[in-house]
């Protein structure tokens, strides 16, 4: 009997070995190593121990602060707007209509498209001179814009023509960042739609039908029944979308590599590490990103436990 237990243990750990080794080294050990690096002056090689000096420097670094603000705008721009559009599309696609499969495939297509290729196309569409978006704007009688090349805040851009000059702090995200946000919403739409469709499919039809028979309007049915019953799906999507938005890299790297008004935390980390070889400092910024995400996710889980309506 004892032999059997021993053999089971040996087998189990042998089966786990490849996963434990790889995940252990490249994920678990890596995170402690990242913390260790962040405590040092480290360019190509380790130079000297600094304690928490890198973190102290981060707090007063205006570029890091700007990266935080840009990231927050990026999250605000992609998550609520992106999910609202996805919900609208999903509710529409859920109606018994023709060609539903076709539209589902179409809306999903951007999601399987590589972000590098998609970003290259959008960059070309946004081109102020030869781009198709400005062509459509001018055809519609609107003024052309400079899109990815426009570092001015969108609120200021919107209010300038009517004579209101906003101060710097109220200028809002740059048009360049908003252009990237629009592209990111397009890219992630399919995933959100598919998950919302799955959520809609799990809501019992009887409730909605009963409300309709009682004379509730479609909007009331949506507002009072469908949307509350979808809250677990919405919650899941918000958590995933926030994590993803904080980690967005590929499209920003391709579309706007050097504009500080589009430099998110991820770009900041990458540039400190890759372009400036300030490895220790980059690692400290990465740890900051980790802590922010951890706090946000835990806070969302807490909130979810209280507010999300599970059947």
């Amino acid at each position, binding site marked *: 009997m004892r032999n059997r237990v021993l053999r089971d243990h040996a087998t189990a750990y042998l089966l786990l070995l490849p*996963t434990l080794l790889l995940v252990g080294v*490249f994920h678990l050990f890596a*995170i402690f190593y990242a913390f260790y690096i962040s405590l040092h002056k480290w360019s190509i090689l380790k130079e000297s121990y600094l304690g928490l000096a890198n973190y102290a420097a981060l707090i007063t670094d205006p570029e890091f602060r700007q990266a935080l603000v840009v990231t927050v705008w990026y999250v605000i721009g992609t998550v609520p707007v992106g999910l609202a559009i996805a919900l609208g599309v999903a509710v529409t696609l859920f109606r018994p209509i023709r060609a539903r499969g076709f539209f589902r495939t179409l809306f999903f297509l951007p999601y399987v498209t590589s972000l590098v*290729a998609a970003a290259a196309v959008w960059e070309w569409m946004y081109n102020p001179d030869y781009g198709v978006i400005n*062509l459509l704007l001018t055809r519609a009688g609107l003024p052309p814009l400079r899109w990815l090349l426009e570092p001015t805040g969108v609120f200021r851009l919107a209010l300038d023509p009517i004579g209101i000059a906003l101060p710097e702090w109220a200028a809002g995200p740059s048009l360049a960042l908003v252009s990237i946000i629009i592209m990111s919403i397009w890219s992630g739409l399919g995933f959100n739609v598919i998950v919302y469709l799955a959520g809609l499919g799990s809501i019992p039809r009887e409730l909605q039908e009963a409300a309709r028979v009682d004379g509730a309007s479609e909007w009331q049915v949506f507002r009072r029944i469908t949307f509350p019953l979808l809250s677990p799906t919405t919650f899941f999507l918000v958590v995933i979308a926030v994590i993803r938005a904080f980690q967005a890299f590929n499209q920003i790297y391709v579309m706007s590599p050097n504009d500080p008004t589009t430099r998110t935390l991820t770009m900041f980390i990458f540039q400190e590490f890759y372009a400036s070889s300030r490895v220790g400092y980059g690692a400290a910024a990465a740890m900051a*990103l980790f802590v922010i*995400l951890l706090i946000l996710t835990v806070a969302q889980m807490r909130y979810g436990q209280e507010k999300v309506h599970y059947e």
Partner: protein
Amino acid sequence: MSDTPRPTLPGRPWRQRLADGLTYLALLVGGLAVAFPFYWMIATSLKTHEETMRVPPTLYPLAPTLANYAKVWEAAPFARYFANTVGVALCVTLGVLITSSLAAHAFARIRFSGSQAIFVALLATLMIPFEVILIPDYILITRLHWEDTYLALIVPWMASVFGVFLMRQFFLGIPTELWESAALDGCGHLTYLFRIALPLARPGLSVVAIVTFLGSWNALLWPLVVVTRRPEIRPIQLGLAVFTTEFGVYSHLIMTAAVLTILPVVVLFLLAQRQFVESIARTGVKG
């Protein structure tokens, strides 16, 4: 699902018809907006350089030509990039399928001390953003002298916690009796795993395979960091990213390269839509 129209309530068929009309209109407009970048990518790839520099731009190619495809093929080693990516993505996917299945079987069918703790520790790693492990992993790769090798692109990603988690769910769904009677007949763990469990868990394998392959195919940040001096081992996304910087003003060539880059995945997606959509709805993972 069926296309049968919803039964209309008496007295409001016109409202029903109006709602349907608006639905189709909204879908059409939305669909056009979503599809437009694909159209623009293909249309530009069929234009000449002179035509792409026209102001205002032409909405469709005046004299469509496939010449750009030949030019792109010559301008950069895209065939090589493709071969690299297919090789890397296949190795990573195969590796993940094997390591995940082995680990998942241990968690699903063997009782051993530490099982719970290890499982939770593995799940916790899902919370770590890639940017955090990027720097330490790069340094580890340089210590191993793996920079600018395929090993750097493949080995670190040959295991996947998500894969273990998903395969475990599938294995737990297989009746225990199957394993018990197999064990009584003297069937070992590996024989059971490969002869009985894996064939039954095929849907799980395809989910893991699709998500892993897609993530590997579309990855940019890691290749960008570990492949710097040997252009011949670049995967396709890195090749395309470099190409867009080197050929900045030649949009017709960049769009052609973009079409080539997404073509294999789009074709694969159209052929296996159902599996793609279900896999991704289930997981929320993208590389």
